[in-house]
């Protein structure tokens, strides 16, 4: 199996932030919602507060840990929505190549593509009000055409293979062929794209929360912590530093892992290496 130098740092970073999110369920250094005006604007490494406190005296480390939970949950569910809806759509379109269903699916896909996730979030917020659920729906809807297109493209090239013809000669129908022959052979591609979309989801969630369309108070979120810190960046730069670094390292870890998985799983590169 080819090795990739990106695998270890990527896996370590991803594991670290996942662990942080999981630990936050059972333990955080302080309660992340407790307002403690006496201890506000504490600098990092100052006594009780490893990463310092914010303008309400809340512990930043605790908020980052709980925020990791929310960021990761939103991104995972959003990518899940995209995959669960997008992959079957793509498979159906490929199996029906050139047919009315294929044409319809691709047209609807193109239409959804014209709505950036932020625009979807704006529409939902305008009508239903803000909330973390908006972020999930907005990012999820945006992911559907991404996976549908990827699946369709990859499946189309597989449908040209002789082993699909052989399966058809054996009397297998399109649903069975898609499940038995197509899906397992594009699974790698979906995993790699899934990692990328996951990291994009983290950034998108942070962006939506930053402008107030995502996670709402009192739930902490990396994006909202950054929004809070902006006016105080001069005298409390640590408030902006740590949530930002958390986003950067989570996304970096996921991207490195995606690259490593691509190197390991992509059959084209594997063939070159042989």
């Amino acid at each position, binding site marked *: 199996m080819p090795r990739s130098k990106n695998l270890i740092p990527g896996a370590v970073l991803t594991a670290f932030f996942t662990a942080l999110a999981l630990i936050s369920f059972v333990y955080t250094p302080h309660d992340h919602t407790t307002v403690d005006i006496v201890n506000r604007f504490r600098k990092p490494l100052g006594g009780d507060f490893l990463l310092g406190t914010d303008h309400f005296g809340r512990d930043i480390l605790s908020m980052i840990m709980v925020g990791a939970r929310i960021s990761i949950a939103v991104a995972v569910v959003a990518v899940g929505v995209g995959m669960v809806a997008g992959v079957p759509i793509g498979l159906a379109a490929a199996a029906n190549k050139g047919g009315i269903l294929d044409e319809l699916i691709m047209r609807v896909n193109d239409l959804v593509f014209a709505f950036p996730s932020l625009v979807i979030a704006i529409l939902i917020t305008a009508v239903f009000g803000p909330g973390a659920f908006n972020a999930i729906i907005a990012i999820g809807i945006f992911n559907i055409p991404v996976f549908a297109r990827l699946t369709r493209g990859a499946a189309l090239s597989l449908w040209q293979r002789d082993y699909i013809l052989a399966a058809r000669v054996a009397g297998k129908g399109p649903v069975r062929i898609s499940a038995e*022959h197509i899906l397992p052979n594009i699974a790698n591609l979906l995993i790699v794209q899934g990692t990328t979309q996951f990291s994009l989801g983290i950034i998108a969630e942070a962006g939506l929360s930053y402008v107030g369309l995502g996670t709402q108070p009192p739930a902490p979120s990396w994006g909202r912590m950054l929004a809070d810190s902006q006016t105080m960046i001069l005298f409390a730069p640590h408030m902006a530093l740590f949530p930002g670094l958390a986003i950067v390292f989570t996304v970096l870890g996921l991207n490195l892992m995606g690259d490593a998985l691509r190197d390991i799983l992509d059959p084209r590169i594997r063939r070159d290496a042989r």
Partner: protein
Amino acid sequence: MTLLRIKNLSCRIGQVPILHDVGLSLEAGRIAGIIGESGCGKSMTAHAITRLLPPGSQANGTLLLDKTDILTASEAEMCALRGKTVSMIFQEPMTALNPVKTIGDQVAEAIMIHKDIPRSEAMAQTRATLDRVDIPADRFPLTRYPHEISGGQRQRVCIAMAIALRPKLLIADEPTTALDVTTQAGILNLLARLVREDGMGLLMISHDLAIMHGMADHIHIIQKGRVVENGPTRHLFRHMKHPCSRALLAAGTHRPDRKVKVCETPLLTVENVTRTYTLPRTGFRVKPGLFRAVDGVSFSIRKGESLGIVGESGCGKSTLARAILGLENTQAGEIRLGKEAVFTGKRPNRAVRRKMQVVFQDPYGSFNPRHKVARLVSEPFHLLDTHPADASDQVARALAAVGLTPEDADKYPHEFSGGQRQRIAIARALIIRPQLIILDEAVSALDISVRARILELLAHLSETHGLTYLFISHDLSVVRSITDRVLVMQLGKIVEEGPTEQIFDAPQHPYTRSLIAAAPQLPGNAT
């Protein structure tokens, strides 16, 4: 004087040695041939001469081209040499041209890169060169793009690019392998004519002995990176010494021994079958056109017979095969196996499908890479109403029948060579004991020696399993060696039909005649 002299040439990529002590020389106005099976290092030799070797490779020895020492020349000297003194053409004309530039621009570039002349003059020279390679101005203006012309025409454009500056040496690396037989004959004639007219040297590289026999003055046979035998063509074919080259020649002229027991009852009947496709819309509000891929075809195969269908690419033979297998809807006509129709209503008939199986061309694309051989071979069991209880025994027997071992059932397809994979494909076709096997270019992608063994296996299986074959191929020599009767297809229609020997010895239809005349012949094959 000697144009090209290669002595003790050794090449390797990284640490892997590819060529050992290769020697070769070529005079101006002569044609030298390099023959070998895939992976023997013949293309590497060609690339070493232009020093366009893959990254990480290293060449040692002597390589003199027209007094220039290639292996020590600077990159700038090589750039000045390439295209002017030595030119190359490659196997795949479909991808050898830049898709976003016109053919005129691409040929003119070959001229302007070496000659400081105004563009208009280069374009005039381009036109003249294209005329020389029979790409006439009225049908092919310089503004044509590569995707607008056929494969054979693209190869002619590539040749024009290569000979525009009248180089002293032309290297042709499998120049006709991707082309149909009549197109191939045209390209070979063109190359021979250019050698004669320009007095240039031609180094031909091919896996095909028959082509070389007709073209080359002097032949080098390469095996595993070594020249195992070389000599003037006539002499070489008469007195082959090295066992490898003799085996190569024997495989090329091989005909499996078949004992035919043909019953009179027809097994498969095809009546007046037509398959049309809707062409993509060519423009805004234009009614889409229709393309008749198979046009009113009728024939029948008797039980135990081996029927060949020959024709060039796009003649409809593969579409016909798919229609017979029930994979394509037909617009008219009927296909029956025994007394039952392949299609009942709009759906394929399972009872009929059980009685036929297929083997495809590509030994690499024929198997799901994630399934083990046992699962691959047993896939046709899906056609039965119940999965057989002794499935693994049946798989073992099928594998044994094609010369593999029962242990191979536990391996993945990538663990096998191309020839072995084709055996697995045959095992898959045998597993439900079909009466008819359709072989769609089943041996076309194989090296000549492997091909001979697979044909031998097919002949043997038809006896032991009582099989009927429908053998579809563009390769006349293969069809001749294994069929009893032949149909010739052109543009979706059957133009000639008859017993194999009769068709080959006394073709009646002009198209059949041109096909047979165009096919290169080996000395042993010519009556």
